[in-house]
């Protein structure tokens, strides 16, 4: 035991509890370390004992985002299957050192947890995975606050966290952490990608009224959209912050009717967005004439699940951005969609895609590093550039752990256009990666050290 604490400053509690039992194991530790010259410390759950690499999938299973969580979990299970047995994007991803027979000779296994879309619950659940189930990486989730809460925990405990669906600038901005990575795009990129296209479509002299969900993601989304549209020549008439729990938006929509705005920007996500969009349509905001123009509604962040919730009669013709859509025709997307459909009988959502990619990317980084030692794996992920995963050439930027890739601008299909229950979004344009790349310094924040203190 004493030997073990020599090599590790952070003695885990379990190691104290099991002090007697692990005495023998600790004796053999120096030999183990000698084999891996770079590994000087036990960090988090490294080194892995046994021949299984355990991953933790922490997704919302209850609450408003349970459907997204269920889809994330499906994708995770598929990713584990592919890592162990080959298939899916393993065949399209480049560069890749994945073998399709486990990772670094270990079989991949997983445990699941419920974030309840509540940062506190998510952290407790993550701790279970880390302390009891000994995961080497965990990921998932469907909200930025949950992602941020978990990535701070990840950094404190030395476990890599691959965030699921999180779109707030803060995740890789002021709250970025060395142990957290994001594959999803963010509010800033949405603004840069969407503004030129709506300006082209609706004209450069538009007057916009924003409704913004009053929480961190909403604020960053509003801020990004305001800057990007004003750069295109638009005027921002007003912005109203709407409480997160609102179900009825009529009082805000009335204020818009009373103003001289001719575009409504809904910085809402999830049920907020489904409600506000449906109600804006109900208030006639897509037919009214204002300032001699037809009023328009813009939804910056679009997802197929939300489009489904609103119904295609509401979303038809509405423009927004999305991370990925199952109708993409590139080889990576096709490989993923085909195997997902074969497994579950329907196409995956963008949340599923993000979670699937991140699992593969993490596993690949371990293969490239030749070890599970977190600082080495992180260094492999930082600045890693890859292709064949559905978004074209993609980069994990080293400075803030944000992914940069082409951004899809989509439009809701009308009931007549859609060919099936899941065919709701039509690709309008793709904004190239170079255009949406911004300077990482604008958001501040510190990644922190490679080794948790």
């Amino acid at each position, binding site marked *: 035991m004493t030997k073990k604490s020599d090599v590790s400053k952070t003695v885990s509690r379990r190691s104290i509890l099991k002090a007697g039992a692990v005495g023998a194991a600790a004796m053999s530790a120096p030999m183990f370390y000698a084999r891996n010259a770079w590994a000087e410390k036990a960090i988090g759950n490294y080194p892995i004992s046994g021949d299984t690499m355990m991953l933790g999938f922490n997704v919302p299973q209850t609450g408003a985002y349970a459907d997204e969580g269920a889809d994330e979990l499906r994708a995770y299970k598929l990713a584990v299957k592919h890592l162990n047995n080959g298939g899916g994007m393993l065949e399209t991803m480049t560069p890749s050192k994945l073998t399709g027979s486990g990772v670094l000779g270990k079989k991949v296994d997983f445990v699941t947890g419920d974030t309840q879309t509540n940062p506190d619950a998510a952290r407790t659940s993550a701790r*279970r995975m880390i302390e009891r189930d000994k995961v080497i990486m965990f990921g998932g989730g469907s909200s930025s606050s949950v992602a941020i809460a978990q990535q701070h925990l990840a950094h404190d405990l030395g476990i890599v966290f691959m965030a699921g669906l999180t779109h707030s600038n803060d995740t890789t901005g002021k709250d970025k952490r060395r142990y957290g990575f994001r594959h999803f795009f963010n509010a800033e990129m949405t603004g840069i990608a969407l503004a030129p296209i709506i300006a082209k479509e609706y004209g450069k002299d538009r007057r916009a009224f924003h409704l913004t969900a009053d929480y961190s993601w909403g604020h960053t989304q509003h801020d990004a959209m305001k800057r990007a549209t004003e750069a295109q020549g638009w005027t921002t008439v007003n912005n109203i912050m709407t409480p997160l729990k609102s179900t009825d938006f009529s009082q805000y929509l009335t204020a818009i009717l009373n103003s001289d705005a001719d575009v409504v920007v809904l910085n809402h996500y999830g049920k907020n967005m489904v409600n506000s969009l449906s109600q804006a349509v109900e208030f006639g905001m897509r037919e009214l004439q204002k300032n001699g123009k037809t009023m328009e509604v813009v939804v910056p962040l679009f997802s197929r699940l939300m489009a489904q919730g609103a119904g295609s009669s509401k979303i038809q013709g509405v423009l927004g951005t999305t991370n990925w859509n199952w109708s993409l025709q590139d080889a990576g997307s096709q490989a993923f969609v085909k195997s997902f459909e074969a497994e579950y009988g329907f196409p995956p959502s963008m949340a599923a895609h993000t979670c699937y990619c991140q699992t593969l990317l993490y596993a690949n980084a371990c293969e490239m590093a030749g070890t599970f030692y977190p600082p080495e794996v992180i260094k492999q992920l930082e600045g890693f550039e890859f292709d064949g995963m559905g978004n074209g050439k993609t980069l994990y930027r080293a400075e803030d752990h944000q992914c940069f890739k082409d951004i899809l601008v989509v439009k809701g299909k009308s009931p007549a256009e859609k060919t099936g229950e899941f065919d709701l979004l039509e690709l309008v344009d793709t904004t190239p990666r170079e255009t949406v790349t911004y300077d990482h310094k604008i958001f501040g924040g510190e990644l922190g050290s490679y080794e948790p203190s």
Partner: protein
Amino acid sequence: MNKSTSIFSKYPIPIFSLVVLSFPFWFEYIGGYPGLDTKILIWALMALGFDILLGFTGYLSFGHAIFFGVSAYATGLMLKHFSPEIIPAMFIAVIVGTIMAFAVGYLTMKRSGIYFSILTLAFGEMLNSAALSTLQDITGGDNGLTIPDVKPVLFGIRMDGLSMYFLAAAILILGYYLARRIATSPFGLILKAIKSNQERLEYTGIDVQKYKLGGFVISAIYASIAGSLMVIYEPYVATEYLHWSTSGELVIMSVMGGVGTLVGPMIGAAFMLYFENVLSVPLGEEWLLVLGIIFMAIVIFLPGGFMEGLARIKKRYFNKSNKEEK
């Protein structure tokens, strides 16, 4: 209650201490893990304090998240901006929590029954909204108050893992001892009299308002200490700490365990957290449905919670001789 003195009623504090102090050493054999045991103690402390209000006076507060949350924020801000030493942080947190308790208690304790519950709920929701929007520059809004790279210490000893557990354990044992003292003190008896008949008590000339407020504040101090410990255990503050669902969970824990028994709510807290984090895993997305059904069953069939269940089992299997004598 049971006439035949059980071992527990003979030596409550030593036995309680034994269970609490040995807890981390056997918890993992039933699927527990280190982070959860500390969290259970913290919630148990809050549930214990809540019982001083609900169990003694019968006042159902839906706003105890206020004290838990406010003191959590105070602790977080102190750790982040002042010093990682926990004593000043806890001190300030408890003071802030107590001031809050006097203010909220003074206004709400004038009402009773459902009107009291709604008033406490309303204060809680107003504070939660403020933390989320108006004060988000201080509180970090829904991202929570993140406290990167701060490791709380007590006299230079880092508070994590077992050291944190034993700190929480020491406070909980002390809290339990004091709660038992309060229960048998004249003050506690008056609080209990408020529950059974407030009007009669008023006729005797006792300033009931003052006693009620006292009970409320003591109960809130327990919640403040719990909130402070939560942030020391994990340097991060979630806005959910202030949300009414935190108060709601507290009510559910107390009812499941057995209101008015002091030990019951603590068992309820342990059960809830254990269920939510360990038993929920095999149940998957249906865990909340199962919990809802268990909760309903307890309210319907066991109004006294687990403690009543225990008492019934005891009566059935251990006190046969007593019954026969009757």
